[in-house]
């Protein structure tokens, strides 16, 4: 026998299910008015400093089908790389957004400010990126990934540097499609599978 560690074990995840919108985006599910407004409607408010961008994409299952029931959350710093609550952070950037795949097309849109690079513990910087968390029916534990940008310098990013198969880095890069417009598709399984994270 030994002493007891007195630590606890994390509660097990379960799928968010097909009706996740009721709890997280009630207006999407048809529950209008239960709250004054849905949580996480926008990561920015008027006057946010930096470049306003729009990221469009879909979440594809292993058969290549664009899922109609995925819910996504994003978290990011402001244009200077500061997170909400940190000293000097842009008060017009709360950094959090919740959005759903369109129920007819499966496409999602995130309108936000392009994030800045962020300092690492112990030195160095991470290239600009947005953290993303995906839940849906059939996803037993939420999937984490990141949106980087194909028009930024990603060469020294510590996470991207760890990806052994270099072509897979491409799955984390949003592709510029126009002025302030990017495309970012997420593939859960199979050819072109997105790099998912365990951080």
């Amino acid at each position, binding site marked *: 026998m030994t002493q007891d560690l007195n630590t606890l*074990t994390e*509660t097990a995840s*379960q799928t*968010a299910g097909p009706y996740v919108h009721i709890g997280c985006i009630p207006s999407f599910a048809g529950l209008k008015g239960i709250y004054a407004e849905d949580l996480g409607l926008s990561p920015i408010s008027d006057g946010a400093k930096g470049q306003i961008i729009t990221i469009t994409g879909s979440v594809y299952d292993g058969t290549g*089908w664009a899922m109609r029931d995925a819910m996504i959350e994003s978290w990011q710093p402001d244009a200077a790389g500061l997170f909400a609550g940190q000293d000097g952070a842009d008060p017009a950037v709360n950094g959090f957004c919740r959005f759903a795949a369109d129920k007819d097309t499966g496409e999602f849109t995130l309108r936000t400010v392009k994030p800045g690079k962020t300092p690492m*513990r112990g030195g160095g910087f*991470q290239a600009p990126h947005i953290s993303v968390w995906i839940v849906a029916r059939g996803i037993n534990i939420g999937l984490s990934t990141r949106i980087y940008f194909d028009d930024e310098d990603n060469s020294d990013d510590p996470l991207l540097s760890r990806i052994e198969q270099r072509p897979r880095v491409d799955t984390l890069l949003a592709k510029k499609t126009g002025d302030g417009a990017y495309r970012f598709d997420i593939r859960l399984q199979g050819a072109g599978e997105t790099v998912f*994270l365990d951080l």
Partner: protein
Amino acid sequence: MTDPATDLGPLIPRNRAVHPVPYDPGYKTSMTRSPNLPLLSMESTPSEETGPRFGHGLLAELDNNLILNWTKGKAAAVGERILVHGRVLDENNRPVPHTLVEVWQANAGGRYRHIKDTYFAPLDPNFGGCGRTITDEQGYYEFLTIRPGAYPWPNRANDWRPSHIHFSVFGHSFGQRLISQLYFQGDPLIDMCPIAATVKDRGQLDQLVAPLDMTKARPMDFLAYKFDIVLRGRRQTMFENRPEGM
């Protein structure tokens, strides 16, 4: 960012063995929605250690009362009235104060108020099906609701979900984000459910089952169920701010 006075240290790496398997043929939809390739593991960074904060100002008075929130207090939902209460803690056994807890569920007949739910059990005009609250200083939360009904779902030919309440918790770090489900003590459908069965560690599944708690039941009004939730913790030692190996 790495101010020694405020840096709580990295998140404790997630033990995936205590979570459901991502790919489980018993739960058919998971077969095409689970990555084939290994996850990329790395120590957490500020992107995972920070996270959105929500203040008590977000909440309206009836947000944690699912019996009344859909009708704004005008009429009560049908069903067995219950209080669900508990604490949000972290792996270090510390309370997680001031964190948002959201819940959603079917009505007493097992029907969700959702555009995609076509089960013929009727909607309750007095029940919406979602609620939210923020934990107090000691990590406590509570909801008043009705016990949701079991319902059939398209998986194998005759699969039924046990009564359950979905819950979503933020913690203080985006890397702590958790969505799961609460089941009820004694429900025979738990052991027949392919979704519950994605959790292979029996002790971990047991931790998703809320016991009846007569100490919080209110006579002639509602029963109570207790449900604690554990989020990932932070690795706090005095040696966090040294370069690795030094």
